[in-house]
């Protein structure tokens, strides 16, 4: 734990050293949110409800899912692939800390910083544009909401690590990640709540890991607890298990086949 805290402190220091990078990154995130937010706001200007969502529910969905995505998807594991290719990964293997724990601590710093700034940005959007926002009064909903965010974070972490481990076998590390980002964008519910899709597509998507990143957590916040949500918890637990084992398998296989000269 002490080691993880130290990694957290160092990563935080690195962010403060490269402040401009982080500010520009946040600026890019706001621009992305603007597109989605204003699109749905203009759709709801001429109607009260659409796809079973009221204006309040839809705008809350967009703002809240954006906020959660800033936590769940924020990651430093993207760097791992480059470190494998450059040989820098050797430095981490020699460290007296588990590689997974090391990156989990780094990711946690990234997530905290991103959610802190995203909260301020979304608060500013609420103050400036005054969208109707839904507040959930049922406290027990928050417990399940946090469980889903936690599970989504774990799935995202292990999937991201697995994608980076491709670097053990191939130089083509960006193309798979590019596809992954596109899939997240559409299949995780960034642009719209997934349940507005035709039912067969929606049910099929629930079998994939994407809705568990932030769609289900946001849906629970908006619509409360229903009995079939426990199926969601079960499937997301299965995805945590599968993604963890995939990352572990790739890491062990990758290390066995890895060699590097010149360091």
């Amino acid at each position: 734990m002490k080691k993880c805290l130290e990694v957290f402190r160092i990563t935080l220091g690195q962010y403060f050293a490269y402040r401009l990078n982080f500010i520009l990154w946040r600026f890019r995130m706001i621009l992305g949110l603007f597109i989605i937010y204003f699109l749905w706001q203009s759709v709801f200007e001429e109607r009260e409800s659409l796809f079973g969502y009221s204006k309040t529910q839809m705008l809350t969905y967009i703002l809240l899912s954006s906020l959660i995505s800033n936590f769940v998807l924020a990651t430093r594991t993207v760097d791992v692939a480059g470190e494998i290719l450059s040989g820098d990964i050797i430095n981490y293997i020699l460290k007296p800390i588990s590689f997974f724990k090391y990156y989990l601590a780094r990711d946690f710093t990234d997530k905290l910083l991103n959610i802190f700034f995203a909260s301020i940005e979304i608060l500013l959007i609420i103050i400036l544009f005054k969208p109707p926002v839904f507040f959930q009064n049922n406290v027990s909903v928050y417990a399940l909401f946090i469980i889903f965010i936690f599970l989504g974070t774990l799935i995202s972490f292990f999937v991201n690590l697995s994608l980076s481990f491709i670097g053990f076998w191939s130089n083509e590390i960006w193309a798979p990640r590019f596809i992954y980002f596109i899939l997240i964008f559409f299949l995780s519910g960034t642009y719209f709540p997934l349940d507005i899709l035709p039912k067969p597509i929606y049910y099929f998507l629930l079998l994939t890991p994407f809705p568990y990143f932030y769609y289900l957590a946001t849906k629970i916040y908006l619509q409360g607890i229903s009995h079939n949500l426990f199926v969601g918890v079960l499937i997301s637990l299965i995805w945590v298990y599968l993604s963890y084992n995939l990352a572990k398998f790739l890491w062990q296989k990758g290390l066995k086949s890895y060699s590097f000269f010149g360091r």
Partner: protein
Amino acid sequence: MKSIIRNFKIFFLFSKFSLKSISQARLGIIFFMFGKILRFLMFFLFVFFLVSKTKILKGYNVNQAIFFYLTFNIIDTTTQLLFREVYRFRPLVVSGQLDTVLIKPFHPFLRILLGGVDFLDLLMLIPYLLLTLFFAFKIGSISTINLLFYFSLLINALIIATAFHVFVLALGTMTTEVDHTIMIYRDLISLGRFPMEIYQEPIRGIFTFIVPVGIMMSFPSKALFGLLSPPLILFSFLLSFILLTASMKLWALAIKKYQSWGG
């Protein structure tokens, strides 16, 4: 005339090198092409699905909304097709290799701006053009003068895009910061995927006239639909001229101040 032919020869030579270098990573080509097609299709289906349901988006019907999206794709893809090399400018600056470009007996833009034609984008451009033609026919009743305005404003958008890229090169030469600037440019122009009317003031005003995303992405389609007044069309041409001139001046200043980085 002789120098134009010479510059074209150099441009084609660099393009040939670029094609050879792209074809070295065949797996990457497949993944990136798949990703680009996926991204286009998903956005296309989303716009189609949403506006078909709402019938109208800020006064535009589904065919018009899709036409906006297709025009955005044509401008964005042509820009990336031509100016891909800008994305690789930073390593050139920080390693000091820019010096070797500057001493060559041709304009450096042939290498650092146009020297990396992206043939994947050329492939993507073909379906975009065909689809745009298809939806233009579906919209119907387009006058010759509006068609002429559409093409002029497309060229105008490419001039503004050129100015943006020259700004990025100048800024990169002066500060070595390229990656975030170019990605911010990409995120800014993404706002033009949808008609600018969806954005609330002052966001709309800022992103139409100050950061001229609206002039680049929305104005061509609006001119085709006959919704753009002649003064605004004239203003667009004037602005692109001012931006291009300003970017060239900044580049000249950057080169004057440049003392070589890295090495």
